């Protein structure tokens, strides 16, 4: 369905990534945001809290990030598209209820404008070190989807995609910005509402009495019933059967958890998204994401001047990881180079996917700034030898 025009600020704007993300959320139909102030993410909710009252949206500043995450799950069960926004320390607090959203299969979007960590770290300075936390941060086996924008324009576009993926797969979607993209101001073009596709909540057509909240006869993703529509359903963070009733058994655990893994794992090909350039004849492929992707482009230019055949693969969807594509490339290239603003996180995924067929060389940066392109270029040149 098309976007609600009241949430779409059509036109060309000069916005930072945080504002653009907020605009993307409103354009996607998000009408509930709960959050707790944290640098460098706060501008997202500042933007939203200024515009929500005019479009039927509610923003509430909760007492902490635990509450913010819990509130958006509750809100989502009314069918209202919901989001919370944070950075590292708050992201840590959200992990508990991110697990609940995964288990209850609640569509929602969690924005993390990454800063340097661990702990309080570098509140105003860039980091990309929450990538593994986004994937594994809550306890137990579960799957999420994570996206990484590289510019304010993408912060807008991909936020809409994040909401759409959350609806399609009934998962919490992690929107993994970084401080640089969040605070970088660029031209952002917002199209007319009629050109924006929004995935609506997949509400069940079944009648109360016939409906089971976690029946999945038609596919891996159950149909949704909203609170207040007469279904009088039950849902829980406990392992549950198709009725949403707790069942403490090996068989139920197998059925319940396997399905919430499979709904992502068996749809990986539909979900993965990356930008790929000149990988055909490349000796070295640079795999990166977010702000580092833009720095890496400068490095690639430098390396090409030195005569190295360099390809480029930018993760747009970081989780699920494009394992198959890396496997294919690993057969052809001499090495992968993986610059990122952490000590080597997505590097581990590249390594795992290439399974020893090509080495993966990390170019770490511990945060607070972006790489010097020369450092990445040097790694590329070395790798090509």
């Amino acid at each position, binding site marked *: 369905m098309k976007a609600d025009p009241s949430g779409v600020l059509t036109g060309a704007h000069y916005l930072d990534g945080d504002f653009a993300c907020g605009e993307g959320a409103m354009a996607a139909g998000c009408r509930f945001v*709960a959050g707790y102030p944290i640098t460098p993410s706060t501008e997202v909710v500042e933007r939203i809290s200024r515009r929500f009252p005019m479009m039927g949206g509610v923003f509430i500043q909760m007492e902490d990030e*635990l509450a913010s995450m819990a509130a958006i799950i509750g809100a989502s069960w009314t069918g209202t598209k919901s989001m919370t926004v944070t950075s590292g320390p708050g992201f840590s607090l959200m992990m508990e209820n991110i697990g609940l959203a995964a288990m209850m299969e609640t569509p929602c979007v969690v924005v993390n404008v990454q800063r340097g960590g661990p702990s309080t770290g570098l509140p105003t300075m860039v980091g990309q070190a929450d990538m593994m936390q986004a994937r594994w941060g809550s306890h137990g086996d579960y799957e999420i989807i994570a996206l990484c924008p590289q510019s304010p324009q993408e912060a807008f576009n991909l936020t809409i995609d994040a909401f759409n993926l959350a609806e399609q797969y009934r998962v919490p979607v992690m929107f993994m910005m970084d401080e640089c993209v969040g605070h970088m101001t660029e031209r952002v073009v917002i199209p007319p509402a009629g050109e924006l596709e929004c995935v609506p909540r997949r509400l069940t057509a079944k009648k109360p009495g016939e409906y089971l909240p976690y029946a999945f006869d038609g596919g891996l993703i159950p149909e949704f019933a*909203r609170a207040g529509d007469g279904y*009088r359903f*039950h849902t829980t963070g406990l392992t549950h059967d198709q009725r949403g009733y*707790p069942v403490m058994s090996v068989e139920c655990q197998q059925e319940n958890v396997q399905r919430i893994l499979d709904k992502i794992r068996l749809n990986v090909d539909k979900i993965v998204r990356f930008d790929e350039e000149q990988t055909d004849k490349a000796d070295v492929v640079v795999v990166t994401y977010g702000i580092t992707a833009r720095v890496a482009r400068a490095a690639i230019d430098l390396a090409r001047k030195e005569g190295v055949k360099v390809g480029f693969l930018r993760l747009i969807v970081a989780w699920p990881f494009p394992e198959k594509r890396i496997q294919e490339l690993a057969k052809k290239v001499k090495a992968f180079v993986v610059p990122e603003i952490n000590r080597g996180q997505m590097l581990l995924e590249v390594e795992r996917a290439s399974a020893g067929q090509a080495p993966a060389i990390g170019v770490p940066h511990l945060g607070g700034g972006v790489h010097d392109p020369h450092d990445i270029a040097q790694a590329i040149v070395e790798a090509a030898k």
Partner: protein
Amino acid sequence: MSHEREIIDQAEMRSDVHPVISVTPDHEVLVENHPLAEYLRMDRMPHIWCPTCGIGIAAKCFAEALYELKVDCTKVAVVSGIGCTGRVAGYMKLDAFHSTHGRPIPFATGLKLCRPELMVAVFSGDGDLVGIGGNHFIHAARRNIDLMVVLVNNFIYGMTGGQNAPTTPLTARTSTMPFGNYERPFNIPHLAASCGATYVARWTTLHVRRLTRSFKEAIQRKGFRFIEVIAPCSTLYGRLNKLGTGFDLMKYYRDASEIHNGADTRDVQIDFQGKLICGKFLDEEKPTYIESMHEHYRRVLGERYVPMPDTGGWINGQD
């Protein structure tokens, strides 16, 4: 007679009725559904609570209140946290959410704000609501968010095996305070009242009629409504403190309860096996969070203000 027996046996075996069976003087067998069966998930019975536990009584009084008020149950949601009382949502035939430990209040806040037409009740234990969830409790009261919060207080962590709670009276023994508790407990009605709750009551599970009446009142009020239900846990609190059976605990409630409606909540602290001041302590009207939001935005934004639709945010308005 054997024909009667047969009808009774058949009725008892059917899973779709939860029969109240009576036989008329003319030997006619009447099979009726229990009037509260409609409010409970009878397909989940028997419940997990121990014999003599008071949580079921609290849940039953809530169901009774819904029944007596003829509340439209399609517009009531109940949210629980984790623990023994955390299981209440699982047995209520409402839109029911068994959320995470300590978080039912913020979960319920999201539900209420996005579907304001719902009556949202939070049903959870003392450890859940004022232990791990204490921060959410005080802030929800401060905001006067439209929730009916029912806290079943059994003075102990039951589900995990009898550990010390923020409500354990001084000197009471728990599995983690084996030599007696020296940590000062919360006076929860006072906490709720001082943070801004608009309705505050406390009853024990002995006071079923008064408790039901409080539920009925609270359901009809707005804002942050708080009911503390003192409930026996003979399995842990009773056993660890050598207080006898569930029956003995109920006898204690009878002997030690004093009803002081309108009591100053500063005076309702509970001491070990001491006086239990019960009653309706507070019942006042204050603008709720949602009312304040509407009022404020209408004043400053006028016509430009678009409130959240009663049935939820935009995407649903389109179907």
